[in-house]
């Protein structure tokens, strides 16, 4: 599947990060550590894609930081030869917020999973999105707890039989894209571990976006949740399962583009129709044209609802939303810069004036 993700004109997420004049390859970003995921894990594909894509960014390696939480995917930073921190469960967005705010010259990445980001770290995720801190969050969604050996996660389908839910899980799952849109995410996308090309193109767009880029990556866990994305990955079914979102294009999918999206004037959302000229069918020019740049997130949210949170027989893939919004870190640094300009002079002298201020008296 090819996807055009051309969004010209926005301020880049990496424009303050020093570029390199040295040619780079994926090998430059490969650390000396042995990768220790299970054979067949979707994380390998994402790691390869990231290692292959980072040279394209053309940034100095020492100015890239990967931060992760806890979980299988959170081992990611160890395998990249950049700066990195494998932190504690759920807190990577807050640590990354400190890094990104303290330093404008770093490209900051968060690697997290469905348990890490949506369960224990849910609070930090939504607040990072709300603040729009300049970082890219890669959420590896395998819809299961892998590192703790197979309990259901906040994205597992209801009724899932696991070690901790022998009679079936009761929790209603999160739709990560809907959540990110609801949290005012300025860049919200979804891609698939097994589609290297799409994955790479979404990563490029995410890195280029200034603000918090949220990328949900469907990722298969062959040990504890194998086949969770079969409908989307199986050649026989994926044409009907994947709803590709391409900027400026009518949203159309299915075998030979037989299906498409239109606004649901009754329900207020969007609905799937058959494309064509026959009875009950909708003409192609009446289909909804995808516009991730729409300042109003309502349509993006409506599209996100097409993901069936149950067994995942159908899901939109691509960039749901990308809008320009001031970032927290730029503004925080801006306030510091403004204050410094307003109070020029030597820091030590100003400190002496500060602590010596107020009502004072002198004893000789």
């Amino acid at each position, binding site marked *: 599947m090819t996807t055009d993700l051309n969004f010209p004109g926005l301020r880049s997420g990496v424009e303050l990060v020093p570029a390199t004049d040295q040619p780079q390859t994926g090998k430059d970003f490969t*650390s000396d*550590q042995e990768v220790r995921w299970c054979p067949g894990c979707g994380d390998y594909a994402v790691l390869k894609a990231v290692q292959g894509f980072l040279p394209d960014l053309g940034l*100095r*390696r*020492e*100015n*890239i*930081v990967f*931060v*992760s939480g*806890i979980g299988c995917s959170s081992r990611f930073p*160890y395998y*990249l*030869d*950049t*700066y*990195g*921190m*494998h*932190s*504690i*469960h759920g*807190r990577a967005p*807050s*640590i990354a*917020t*400190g*890094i*990104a*705010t*303290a*330093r404008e010259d*770093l490209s900051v990445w968060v690697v997290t999973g469905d348990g890490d980001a949506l369960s224990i770290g849910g*609070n*930090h995720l939504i607040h990072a999105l709300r603040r729009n801190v300049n970082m890219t969050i890669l959420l590896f969604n395998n819809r299961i707890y892998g590192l703790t050996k197979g309990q259901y996660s906040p994205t597992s389908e209801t009724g899932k039989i696991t070690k901790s839910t022998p009679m079936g899980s009761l929790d209603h799952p999160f739709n990560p894209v809907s959540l990110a849109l609801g949290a005012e995410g300025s860049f919200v996308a979804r891609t698939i571990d097994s589609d290297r090309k799409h994955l790479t193109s979404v990563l490029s767009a995410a890195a280029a976006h200034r603000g918090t880029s949220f990328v949900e990556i469907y990722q298969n866990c062959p040990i504890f949740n194998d086949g969770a994305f079969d409908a989307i990955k199986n050649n026989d079914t994926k044409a009907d399962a994947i709803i590709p979102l391409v900027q400026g294009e009518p949203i159309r999918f299915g075998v030979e583009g037989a299906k498409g999206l239109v606004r649901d004037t009754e329900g207020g959302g969007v609905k799937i129709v058959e494309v064509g000229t026959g009875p009950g069918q909708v003409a192609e020019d009446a289909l909804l044209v995808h516009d991730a740049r729409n300042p109003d997130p309502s349509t993006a949210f409506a599209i996100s609802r097409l993901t069936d949170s149950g067994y995942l027989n159908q899901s939109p893939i691509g960039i749901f939303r990308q809008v320009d919004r001031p970032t927290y870190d730029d503004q*925080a*640094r801006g*306030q*510091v810069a*403004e*204050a*410094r300009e*307003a*109070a020029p002079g030597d*820091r*030590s002298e*100003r*400190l*002496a004036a*500060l*602590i*010596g*201020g*107020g*009502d*004072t*008296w*002198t*004893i*000789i």
Partner: protein
Amino acid sequence: MQQGKQVKQLDRVIIRFAGDSGDGMQLTGDRFTQESAVFGNDLVTLPNFPAEIRAPQGTLPGVSSFQVHFADHDILTAGDAPDVLVAMNPAALRANLGDLPKGATIIVDTHDFTARNLAKAGYDANPLDALGDAAPGAPGGLSEFAVHPVDLTGMTVEAVKEFGLSRKDAARAKNMFALGLLSWLYGRPTESTIAFLEKRFAKVADIRDANIAAFKAGWNFGETTETFAVQYEVKPAPMAPGTYRNITGNLALAYGLIAGGVQSGLPVFLGSYPITPASDILHELSKHKSFGVTTFQAEDEIAGVGAAIGASFAGALGVTTTSGPGIALKSEAIGLAVMTELPLLVVDVQRGGPSTGLPTKTEQADLLQAMFGRNGEAPVPIVAPQSPGDCFDAALEAARIAVTYRTPVMLLSDGYLANGSEPWRIPELADLPTIDPAFATELNHRPETGDSGDDAEFWPYLRDEETLARPWAVPGTPGLEHRIGGLEKADGHGNISYDPANHDLMVRTRQAKVDRIAESLPPLVVDDPSGEARVLVIGWGSTYGPIGAGVRRVRKAGYHVAQVHLRHLNPFPKDLGDILARYDKVLVPEMNLGQLSMLLRARYLVDAIGYNQVRGLPLKAVEVAEAIGELVSQAEGIQVDLSTESTPSTEKAL
């Protein structure tokens, strides 16, 4: 100005201003304090207010008070019992009466002594009606006190009539009338308060003028009324040469953090979540961005410390400020900072616990949490200030340790230090320590087999031999790319290691690094003037004042006692063990159930005896003195009589 009025000399006075939460008692007390500071008295203050922002008006839980102790000599505490109570309503009178010694002066605003307000305060009858004829010692009776019933509110409203304020707004200036009256009574300079009011209400001319008028009217009332026949004078205290200001602990601590940034050349990054009584540090630091200070109000306590750790990783001085409940939430992240060996300042302004506890009251019961409140062997250095002004030095010291040793450091202040104030000699910048971040910029390891430069590597866990600190290599430094995290590190190269021997080594090494800090500490100062003491009193944190005052009482009565006060709780100073061994008895007064006692007993096998109070208030000097006296009696086999010092200060003072 005091024509016809007698002037009496006093060496010290304790005044407590008490009223409803909305009556402006904190402001009144603060202004009186500033006047006294400018006048040159030594002073210590104790604000005491409810956790509720506006508790139901006129009720006992809604009473807010501010105690100021000022003297013509060096004093250490806000005083055990007020000589003067200013009570703005029946609830304020009732709530504070129990703290007053016989003979204390009470100035009471009669205006709010209505049937309704009396009932709210739990009075069946107006206690002012019974003045003079109540049986001595009757509960709630006022016959033992010198009571001055004055219609402060009524006179205030009359005094500000010309400004055309509503009756409500006019009455609100009554605190300034009271301040004016007390300022006259003790001969305080008034200029700073008038300047303050002019600035504070610059944008509302009528309110400004009314407050100034009320303040002056209060002064004039004192001067002219027959009610007050005597004016008092407390001369300035002799103090070491220097320039002074009055400062609260939270302000001094915030300044200390800024100084930590300046003295290390690092930008300061504060990640914090609002919590009483620490929020004022966040407020203050947010005003000083011009020093390269970034303040981040996080979504929760964990995010606050997380962002601070991230900022430290990125090369800033990461700081997080909170109180005990926040420390509980941050524990896992502090453990991460222990493991990643990054500089981090964790400020705990302790309050009454457990759980939400007493948010606005003081306590020092987080020592063991600071010491041990993490999973695994996770040693964290602990520094504690001993007075409001000392919060400045303690913050700088905590920054020194954090940066030098690449470690999180706990700074244990408390509610009493945070909101209390004292005159502070403003330090010369040249006297402040400089802190060297010593960022790593070079590869630091060459495999033994190879000698070519190409083999050189960066090992993030290769240690400085003297401090055992690891290199701090910040992102952006070419060639030093490395990964750190919460998993156990292999010694040296820092890659993940599950090797049993390595884990044992790393656990011991992290402990050894913290222990190594003791090498950089100055010897303890033992205050034992006679050299004959057999009892040692040892404390930490804000109990310095009450312990010191208690020690003075014991010595004044002719007995020997030694005192030592700890700034470093982890590691302990190297000479502490020897000092403890020199004395027959060791007393440890604390505002907890014996946490330092436990540490001393465990570490030094010393029979530390606790004196413990957890009432949400500072220890009382007189009670500490009694506890010391008891031990002196046991140690020396003598009868101890402290009564030469038991004269109520009021008889001397008023």
